[in-house]
């Protein structure tokens, strides 16, 4: 479990490494990408839990962005698979708790719980992939700098950034501890429950110590709460074009249910 979480964390860092590529999307101002992603997230989660078909057109955004930014889809898909068990757990709970019949497909009864489960699944795929694509086209440090420019208190932005980095430290420490544990207890699969308390306690202390040392090393190189990046903030017409096009398209998808036309053709999902 911890090993798979570590791999997931490493994948996110690998995604961030793609943020230096030389494409139209990568050259856009990070603030534009952040704003469009935020708009996308707000629109996607604003749909009613029983609405599925209006979400379908929104898949055009991550797909289009991935193609234009030449982002490798595989790490995104694998990261999505990591969060999928949690979503499925919530989805199954919905199916159990909300059994009211919505409609039938042939002889198969479809409950509102099933519809809301699919809706949660789609929303998760859309929102997580949009955020991962944002990270793969703009480094977190650059995004953090933009948040500061938006007058969000620097202490909050710094907390956010250091937490992001701390997660990596935590997983690195966890990985070394798991390897050391496994090598000395080869017959056990994973960490025994009786060792879990000591393991987690040690992990917390070790990662806190290391985070502390990293912070001291940062201070020794002049860090005083502001993280500088190499990104030069220059606006150009492409930023406005991208923001305008994406903004209008997303608004159109949110206001006009294109999928209704498809529903009329197919008989509707609801």
């Amino acid at each position, binding site marked *: 479990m911890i090993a798979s979480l570590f791999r997931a964390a490493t994948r996110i*860092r*690998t995604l*961030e*490494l793609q943020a*230096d590529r030389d494409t139209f999307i990568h050259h856009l101002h990070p603030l534009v990408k952040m704003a469009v992603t935020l708009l996308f997230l707000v629109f996607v989660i604003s749909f009613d839990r029983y609405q599925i078909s209006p979400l379908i057109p929104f898949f055009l955004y991550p797909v289009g962005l991935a193609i234009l930014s030449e982002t490798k889809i595989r790490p995104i898909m694998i990261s999505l698979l990591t969060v999928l068990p949690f979503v499925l757990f919530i989805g199954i709970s919905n199916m159990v708790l909300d059994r009211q019949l919505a409609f039938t497909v042939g002889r198969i009864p479809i409950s509102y719980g099933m519809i809301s489960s699919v809706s949660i699944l789609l929303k998760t795929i859309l929102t997580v992939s949009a955020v991962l694509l944002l990270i793969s086209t703009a*480094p977190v*440090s650059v995004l953090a700098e933009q948040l500061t420019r938006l007058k969000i208190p620097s202490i909050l932005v710094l907390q956010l950034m250091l937490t992001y*980095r701390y997660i*990596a430290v935590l997983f*690195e420490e966890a990985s070394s501890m798991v390897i050391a544990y496994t090598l000395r207890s080869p017959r056990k699969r994973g960490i025994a429950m009786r060792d879990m308390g000591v393991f987690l306690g040690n992990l917390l202390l070790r990662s806190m110590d*290391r985070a502390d*040392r*990293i912070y*001291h*090393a*940062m*201070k*020794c*190189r*002049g*860090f*005083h709460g502001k993280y*500088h*990046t*190499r990104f*030069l903030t220059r606006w150009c017409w492409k930023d406005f074009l991208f923001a305008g096009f994406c903004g209008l398209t997303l608004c159109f998808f949110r206001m006009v249910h294109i999928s209704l036309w498809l529903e009329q053709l197919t008989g509707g999902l609801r």
Partner: protein
Amino acid sequence: MTIPNMIEAEGLRVVCEDGYVALSDVSFSLESGSRTALIGANGAGKSTLLLSMVGVVPYTSGVLRVANAVVDKKTFSELWKTVGLVFQNPDDQLFTMKVVDDLAFGLRNQGLDELEVERRVTETLERMDIIHLRNRMPSRLSLGEKRSVAIGAVLAMEPKVLLLDEPTSFLDPRSRSLLVRTLASLPQTQLIATHDLDFARGLCERVIILQKGKVQAEGKATDLLSDHSLLIRCGLELAPQF
């Protein structure tokens, strides 16, 4: 003609939170441009001394002067501009997503413009022979490569005083030789904590021997490192020659 001292420490004492005395009455001076090895057995206080000289571990009493200016609580926060410390464990120092960003981190904090940052980063990467690691993720490097990057990250800042904590650990022989040549070519005042006595003898003119938090001996490297009885008394030993 006397060479001015870059660093002067008088009676430095460090007491840990649990009451353990890590350093006691440590006094020494480093001439400007000199290279001094700080040697001692495990737990002698070498790392603590280096950390106390940059304010990470505050000293309880004593006086520290850098470039003739007394360092106090107010000036400690500005010490990073003059004194650069390479940490013992490179994993504690490298934290960015790319090697190039780690080298640029300190330079950007110095307020340099991007052209100058780029120039210094490239120059340092070439000097340390790690230009091929430029866009690699530090966490994916070998320990030796991480060590070279960590040293480069401090060298790029061009501090007047360079403190290095076990710089040869994790390095292969080729990287070690390169490090010796690089450090020998630098004009900075250097204080190098090391267990590698051959390295100390080959690079440093002076040696300070620490034992149990106290300075046991200070003098010329050639004299002290050939005094076997002193080395053994201080828990040190030269590596056997093959």
